[in-house]
């Protein structure tokens, strides 16, 4: 026997905001309740729960999964927290897939929560301790530093300018104006991006997604249950993940090999041979504008070094050949880490059901890919969805 086919049958998403009044468990509750309501299920119908959330340092709570448990409906259930850093949001539904595909349960609730504003004065305080304590922490690095290195390497490799990359921020922030959860949507010009305050050259403030608070949830079901619950299930047909070495400084940063490996794992499972032709909507992780380009290439959606040119030609616009981050992405909707990844999967769910409202891309898309990325330039998580 093989694995059971798994469908997304419901979804919930809170607003992404700078400082939520709600606690982490309350945000988790909101998203979970919305997801269950959207497919007319009650908590008692859920057998198992998996929750994704990035570092405990954000909330300042040890064993954060246990802290969020009551809000996510985990009391008296099989409940577990999965964690692959920034890749967690897309890994959470992969973890849920394991639950349902294996036959461990028929209905699994997948929750992703992040409350970054608890971290004082900024989440960078939590990020200092992601670095190696002997070789890196004494340099007092910030995350933005290492992204500046990666962005510069990517630009240098392909002869790109900041303007080539800034178009991604312009597109995504504009797309997000149609997203009800969006935190930093807006109409900007390329010059606005270029002239925003410098953080660490070549990274400027508008190249980067904001810290945020929010939660997302989806309900996964086995094929027979999914068909009873909805006539428009969206199938999780491919899952892949991959983790590269901890020694990030020893590798060439221009290309995310680990994203390619994760994508190949997911495409192989979904039977996708030519992703650039078969994928009709993409939600790559875009915490920085260059990251969307980097990830399009890693996901094999375009040849290496071509993503910026395709963006300039409108290929990735909502009306283009391959709409990319039609949600508005992390750059527009906001970036409460784990919640953002799951937000992207929810965007595929809505687009493939034709329920994305003003964000709906034309042409009744049937196949989409979502991806997240994290740790020290290390982890790729990929799901392929089909209607």
């Amino acid at each position: 026997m093989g694995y059971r086919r798994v469908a997304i049958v419901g979804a919930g998403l809170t607003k992404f905001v700078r400082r939520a009044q709600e606690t982490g468990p309350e945000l988790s509750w909101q998203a979970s309740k919305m997801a269950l309501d959207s497919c007319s299920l009650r908590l008692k119908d859920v057998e198992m729960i998996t929750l994704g959330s990035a570092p405990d340092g954000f909330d300042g709570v040890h064993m954060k999964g246990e802290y969020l448990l009551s809000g996510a409906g985990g009391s008296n259930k099989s409940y577990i927290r999965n964690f692959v850093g920034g890749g967690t949001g897309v890994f959470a539904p992969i973890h849920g897939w394991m639950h349902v595909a294996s036959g461990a349960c028929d209905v699994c609730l997948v929750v992703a929560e992040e409350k970054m504003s608890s971290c004082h004065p900024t989440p960078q305080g939590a990020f200092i301790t992601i670095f190696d304590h002997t070789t890196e922490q004494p340099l007092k690095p910030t995350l933005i530093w290492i992204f500046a290195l990666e962005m510069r390497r990517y630009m240098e490799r392909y002869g790109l300018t900041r303007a080539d990359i800034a178009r991604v921020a312009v597109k995504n922030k504009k797309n997000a104006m149609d997203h009800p959860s969006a935190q930093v949507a807006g109409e900007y010009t390329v010059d606005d991006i270029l002239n925003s305050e410098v953080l660490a050259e070549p990274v400027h403030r508008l190249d980067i997604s904001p810290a945020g608070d929010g939660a997302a949830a989806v309900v996964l079901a086995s094929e027979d249950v999914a068909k009873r619950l909805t006539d428009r299930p969206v199938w999780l047909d491919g899952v892949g993940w991959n983790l590269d070495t901890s020694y990030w400084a020893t590798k060439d940063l221009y290309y995310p090999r680990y994203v390619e490996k994760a994508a190949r794992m997911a495409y192989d499972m979904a039977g996708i041979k030519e992703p650039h032709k078969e994928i009709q909507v993409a939600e790559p992780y875009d915490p920085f504008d260059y990251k969307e380009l980097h990830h399009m290439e890693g996901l094999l959606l375009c040849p290496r070094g071509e993503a910026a040119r395709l963006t300039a030609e409108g290929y990735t616009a909502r009306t283009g050949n391959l709409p990319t981050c039609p949600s508005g992405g992390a750059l527009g909707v906001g970036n409460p880490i784990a919640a953002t990844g799951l937000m992207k999967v929810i965007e595929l769910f809505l687009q493939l059901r034709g329920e994305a409202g003003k964000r709906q891309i034309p042409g009744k898309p049937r196949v989409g890919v979502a991806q997240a990325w994290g740790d020290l330039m290390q982890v790729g998580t990929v799901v392929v969805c089909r209607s």
Partner: protein
Amino acid sequence: MSGRFLMNGRVAIIGIGTEGFSPVTPHLSFKELTYCAAVKAYRQAGLHPKEIDSFITASEDFMEGYSIFDEYVPDQMGAVMRPVHTVTAEFLQALGVGVMMINTARFKTIAVEAHSKASNIKTLHDVKAFALDPVYLRPLEEDAEFLAGLEMRRFLRDSGNTEEQCAQVVVKNRGNALLNPLAGHGAKLRVDDVMASGAVSTPLKRLDAAAAADGAVMVVLAAEDVARSLCANPVWVDGVSWFSAEGNPWSRDLGVANYAKLAARKAFAMAGKTVRDVDFAEVCDEYSYKELQHLESLGLARPGEAGYLTENGFTSLNGDLPVNASGGSLGVGHAFEASGGMKVVEAVLQLRGEAGAHQVKNARTGLVQSWRGVPTATGAVAILSNE
């Protein structure tokens, strides 16, 4: 639930590796602890890490001293550029996820790892206190162990067990540990020694609580066909389940270990076995009263009888139901997320007849149970057998 979880055949443990367990390991970093355990486990399984399909680590950021500890996982396991993920959970839960993954039929072999480098933590009690809810419990400015004291008092009152019977658990387990070469806290104690050891959180006394240990565990899981072709003495994971009881400590029944009750019910159903089939048990004894409480909640002793059975040798090495023949957390040392791993290793040794001086007679089916410690009500149960 029975049967469905094992729709793709049985899952076996085909390799185990440990390093430690010792109160301190100044000669080994956490990476080296894991490396040593991994090499042993792969060698025993007869597999190169390249032949392992996926890897799982159970860890918690605050215990590691890193944010996003997932970053530092792959290299020492030989798992660079491979599908690796972290669960912020206990080893036994990670083992359950591994069984689930093999049951999707997408994976044939899974390596599961957990480790403790508790000796690196300067302020272990402060880390534990960070697990308390920041709104409701942290303002009390209490050490998290106050909850263990409350639980112990409630359990003793409800069940009629006594403090002396709890002390007897300490005497038994630390005595068993003298026979176990892995154990770092073996000792010949008397009940009076425990009773006179001074209060931690009344009625909990210093010797009622397990001391910390460093150590690492790696277990290699395989699908039935792989296990039979590679391994002469596979140990089968017949049932495994994890549960969380009421998430908030203030609305939880502190007298009963409901998580153990729920997980045992499901694990037994999966295994098609009952408590009568259990020849020996390794249950969580981070605190002495927990062994008694768990035995009763698991159904291995009737309510109120676990203390009596302990006093009368029923749970000793040569008793009818040997419990923690390894020495348990009290005797081996508590290795946090890896503690359940140590108990799985013990069960495998027992079922292979390789436990040496602490071998129990006629071991065919063993029960392993874990708990995540205060302030959680989360735990897991696995039923292992050699036939």
